[in-house]
């Protein structure tokens, strides 16, 4: 009894605003509900898989899925690499000022993605700061956000900058959990630093890596604010993501179609998390 009493406020909100929408999203994706049915939901009809078939036939949606996968497939490894390098540097070579570096690298994480997007949109202009910096080392930069080939890399660079702090502190904690004796023993046996990193550090970081990979997949699959502020999904749909597509359909009042699109996202997140857990379990 006491337990349910303690859980009840949480449960009420959790069911009403957490669990129920997940289920409702699935239900709505099989209906033709639109913004007109908001107050009078009696006209809503069951349409089976029609919304999903509409999505499959829509080139923009296919493009959105591919763009989202592109963002995930390139963004996650790059973010993990940068964060791992930062964590290893902070853990091995740096004793003084360690806190300063950690706090500095982590700062972008706490900032609003919208503010970041506004500032970076300015920096990415053809005659902007980014290209000025590239010009200083003799490279002629592209018109980042207006060139379909460069718009996605531009958003990935920004995402890496903003997000590497989280995996970095998780990797740091993972690195500090590795007993120093292991590396000392390896060095006595004549192993090089690189060798002992590859044979000791990396395998022991596997559980940490899994956590980071899952967290980043969930975060990166939601890709939405960046195209909203910086590109409007363009140029030529090159930055339209699944989330952005779902929001657009919602804006048109097509709630059934928007639900179907966002449910594709739920399935992708579930699938990717599952695959990552499988992959890492069999290897370790």
């Amino acid at each position: 009894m006491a337990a349910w009493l303690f859980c009840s406020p949480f449960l009420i909100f959790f069911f009403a605003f957490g669990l129920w929408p997940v289920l409702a999203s699935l239900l709505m994706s099989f209906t033709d509900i639109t913004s007109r049915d908001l107050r009078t939901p009696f006209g809503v009809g069951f349409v089976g898989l029609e919304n999903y078939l509409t999505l499959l036939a829509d080139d923009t949606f296919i493009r959105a899925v591919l763009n989202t996968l592109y963002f995930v497939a390139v963004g996650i490894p790059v973010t993990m690499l940068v964060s791992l390098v930062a964590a290893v540097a902070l853990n091995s070579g740096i004793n003084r000022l360690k806190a300063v570096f950690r706090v500095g690298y982590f700062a972008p994480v706490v900032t609003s993605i919208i503010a970041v997007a506004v500032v970076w949109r300015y920096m990415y202009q053809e005659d902007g700061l980014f290209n000025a910096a590239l010009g200083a080392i003799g490279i002629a930069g592209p018109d980042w956000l207006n060139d379909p080939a460069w718009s996605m890399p531009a958003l990935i660079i920004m995402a890496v900058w903003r997000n590497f702090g989280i995996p970095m502190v998780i990797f740091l904690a993972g690195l500090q959990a590795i007993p120093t004796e292991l590396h000392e023993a390896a060095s006595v046996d004549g192993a090089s630093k690189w060798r002992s990193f590859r044979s000791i550090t990396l395998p022991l970081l596997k559980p940490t890596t899994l956590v980071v990979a899952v967290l980043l997949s969930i975060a990166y699959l939601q890709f939405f604010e960046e195209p909203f502020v910086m590109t409007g999904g363009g140029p030529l749909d090159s930055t339209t993501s699944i989330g952005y597509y779902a929001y657009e359909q919602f804006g048109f009042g097509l709630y059934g179609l928007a639900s179907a699109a966002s449910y594709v996202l739920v399935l992708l997140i579930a699938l990717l998390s599952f695959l990552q857990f499988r992959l890492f379990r069999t290897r370790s």
Partner: protein
Amino acid sequence: MTITASVRSVRKGLRTRTLIYILATLGLVVTLAPFAWMILGSIKPTGEILADPNAWLPKNPTLDNFTDLLSRQNFGLYFFNSVVVAVACVIGNLLFCAMAGYALAKIDFAGKRLLFSLVLLMLIVPGIATFVPLFVQVSNLGLANTYLGLILPYIVTPLGVFLMRQFIGDIPDALLEAAKLDGAGEIRTFFRLILPLSGPALATLAILTFLAQWNNFLWPLVIAQTDDMYTLPVALALFSIGANGTNYGLLLAGAVVVVLPIIVVFLFLQRYFIQGIANTGIK
């Protein structure tokens, strides 16, 4: 090892370390450059921004962009809305998630495992996957464009329960038994023993919740329909893609207003921020 060899290896270590420091500092400069750019740009007069978009230092620093923003765009009101939503969500999360976390950690009851599994599962479901039915539901409750509509969906979070359960689980059972022996009921035990002992966890949860709500974008964008209910990120985003999209002085000032408070809080409480994120990743 001969003396020359060990001198050589110390030298080599020193060189590696210096190299790491140089690279780490370069990394820090690159990481912080956009912040410097934003702040320096926000105090430049418009003419100066247009004349030379890539100059760093303002020649005639001014606060005009900020006063313009406040008078023309109601940023004071948006700021207030953001504070109301974030503070209400912090209070709700602290109280309700601590209560549920206590039950899940320390009381045996039927359905406990199932409930905790659901909480874990919901940790990975993002807002962007459920905003459509949530909008329909909150609208049907008559809460569209109200503070309650902004707040209620985030007044508890699975992350909050998860964090509190992990922390309260580490409190020794012996302490709880002692309280029971002294005749304290569950409610008394919770308020007199569990809550005071959970200080660090509550602080972490408070900071993470505040951060998440301060930066939350999609939900306020969907549910706030008139200008007076916008939160800061919504106002800044709509402002930047609207007719004002090329007035970079105003835009950068807006970005400063959104980012600076959280950066100041972060500088003071960075230990909790970083620890909180690390803990959610590890446990």
